[in-house]
């Protein structure tokens, strides 16, 4: 390949040089402890997350649109969170019905009446998208609690660079090594005085590698719960050597375990009275507690409406077409097309989960329709988006696999999108399940600068 050729102009793919290094890179990932933890049916499992060296490549023009759309979406979601824990105008004006706004298990009344530092709830948002076979991108899910996975493309890129640096000199890939700096910028922006820490449940947590790696990259202290305590409305870090005030905590444990005096009293990994310090305004919690109020399945339908309501703009990114049986027109459509839709139960426990209508037999379909008719608010239905495959190197050959993209949006002084992201692919041909829990793997995401 000519050294001056931009990517994609020759018939040799730009990543060809990387592919032979795949086994070596996977060995190194395993050595670093890059694993994925899966909590399923009451048991916890860890497994390696296989890396495929063939990246997802996004051209500069497509990225510019995604970037604007993602920032817009996250700005609207942050505005919604400020509203729903504050004045609740969007509910009063009927844009989001009460039944959806407060039925979500992610809505936490313990977070009422306090605005986080700088009004930012979701500092790090993980937005899951797919590229449809129709050429347009669709958002499938917003993750505003503690979206994980940024470290995977970061470390994979650095290992790739070590194996074959010439590829990165030849192909105009936007450097993704600025993630740590951006994370630091976000934490510094909301910091209320003191140091930045990353709070990990501990080294036995499946994502410990990511916690440690991100702390190092963002120049923050990695802390375990027993190294933090609250006194007089402030959060402190303490080790054998010193005691220091903490102004921002990037916590990698979920809301319910955050503070045993506010949420689950049996939590042993929380920091007692952290919520009191937060309410007193002396510490920023990254991401803010209560964000589940905006990223639950039942709220997804309303996100484009939030963009219009709060920003007065047309949404740049679209949702997968979604129907709420709660609305009579949608109910009629869902009942007529149940066999071709994905039906999602928004109730938190003991539900139907996610069901593809096409997999149900006649009886199953009837039972599902009855359930929808009797509890319309409990379900949402979506068109199945047919999304594109990416070339993937499996078993010595390049084969097509469905893949999604988790893009990371950082909200600090401004809202910016990290020019990279976690691309996850399905293990089986034709499968649309890209979750790591189903044995899929991941790819780096290359954003081209031109």
């Amino acid at each position, binding site marked *: 390949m000519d050294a001056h050729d931009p990517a994609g102009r020759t018939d040799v793919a730009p990543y060809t040089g990387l592919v032979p290094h795949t086994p070596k890179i996977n060995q190194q990932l395993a050595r670093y402890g890059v694993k994925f933890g899966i909590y399923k049916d009451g048991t916890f499992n860890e497994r390696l997350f296989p890396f495929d060296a063939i990246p997802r490549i996004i051209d500069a023009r497509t990225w510019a649109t995604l970037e604007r759309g993602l920032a817009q979406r996250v700005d609207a979601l942050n505005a919604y969170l400020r509203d729903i824990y504050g004045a609740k105008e969007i509910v009063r004006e009927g844009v989001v019905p009460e039944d959806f706004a407060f039925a979500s298990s992610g809505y936490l009344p313990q977070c009422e*009446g306090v605005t986080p530092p700088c009004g930012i709830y979701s500092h790090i948002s993980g937005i899951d998208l797919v590229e449809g076979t129709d050429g347009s991108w669709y958002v499938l899910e917003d993750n505003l609690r503690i979206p994980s996975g940024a470290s995977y493309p970061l470390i994979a890129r650095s290992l790739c660079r070590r194996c074959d640096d010439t590829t990165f000199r030849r192909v105009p890939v936007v450097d993704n090594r600025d993630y740590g700096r951006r994370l630091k910028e976000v934490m510094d922006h909301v910091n209320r005085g003191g140091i930045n820490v990353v709070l990990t449940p501990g080294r036995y947590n499946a994502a410990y590698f990511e916690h440690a790696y991100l702390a190092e990259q963002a120049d923050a202290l990695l802390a375990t719960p027993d190294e933090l305590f609250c006194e*007089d409305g402030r959060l402190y870090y303490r080790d054998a050597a010193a005691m220091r005030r903490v102004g921002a905590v990037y916590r990698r444990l979920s809301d319910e375990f955050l503070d045993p005096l506010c949420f689950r*009293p049996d939590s042993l990994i929380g920091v007692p009275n952290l919520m009191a310090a937060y309410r007193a305004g002396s510490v920023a919690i990254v991401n803010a507690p209560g964000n589940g109020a905006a990223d639950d399945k039942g709220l997804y339908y309303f996100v484009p409406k939030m963009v219009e309501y709060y920003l007065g703009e047309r949404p740049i990114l679209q949702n997968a077409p979604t129907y709420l049986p709660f609305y009579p027109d949608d109910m009629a459509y869902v009942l007529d097309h149940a066999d071709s839709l994905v039906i999602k139960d928004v109730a938190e426990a003991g539900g139907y989960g996610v069901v593809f209508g096409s997999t149900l037999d006649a009886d199953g379909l009837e039972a599902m329709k009855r359930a929808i008719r009797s509890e319309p608010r409990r379900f949402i239905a979506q068109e199945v988006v047919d999304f594109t495959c990416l070339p993937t190197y499996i078993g010595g050959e390049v084969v097509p696999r469905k893949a999604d993209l988790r893009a990371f949006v950082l909200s600090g002084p401004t809202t910016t999108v990290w020019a990279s992201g976690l691309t996850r692919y399905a293990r089986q041909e034709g499968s649309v399940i890209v979750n790591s829990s189903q044995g899929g793997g991941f790819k780096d995401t290359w954003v081209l600068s031109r």
Partner: protein
Amino acid sequence: MRILSYSFETALHLSEPVREHDFLLRCRPKSAGGQTVLSTQTVVTPDTRLLELTDGFGNAVLAGRIAAEHDEFSFLSAGRVLVDRADQPCEHAHPMYRRPSALAACDEGIAAFARDAAGRDSADVAGDLWGCVRRISGALHAAMSYEPGSTFTTTSASEAFAQRRGVCQDYAHILIAALRSLGAAARYVNGLIVGDGATHAWVEVHDGSRWRGIDPTNDRDVDDDYIELAHGRDFSDCPIEAGVFRGGADQRQELFISVRDQSMRV
């Protein structure tokens, strides 16, 4: 309208010294609803700085930490409160109070009980809401037997109703679940009552413009004998005391409560 003076002390005796004791108290009444706090003071022993805050439900909370070793912990809350339930202000009911909550979720048994007792399928504010509330409270009072020690603080409405036994917390949870099943907004209240040597719990129901109290344990409307300390969807939102510490110690708790009518001395 009455002026009540109250004094409320909880002492925790620990079999061995503990340290790094973090706590959160909801022992101080707040001026809200039909009560105005005229004076109040809180004393925590061992002495420590207290952070005063309002929680997500609007309650007054005090957060503190005792780092040093101690084997006694007590807090005293005392003051005077002007109570005038006839002058309950208008306020909006947050929709969360219409929804099931952890300890006050309805089951088929409670729902059927509520329908039978109310004599209808829904308790709408336009109809005879308070009549419904009283009928369910009365039926519950008759159906349950009051038995200290028969339940725990983590017992749900369903569990208590199934055994038809419980304490004021359980009566309140069952009534809340019953009222929510009929569509009403209902919340849990922790507080004090004239003449009782313990803390008490009751229920508030939103009548479309204001919260009104009903006490199913005593089957009576809440009047000027009651001082509210905290409210929430159920007990788990608003315990009077919550704490964690390091050190494995057995605990014994003592309560000293007095609530007296002081109106004549105004």
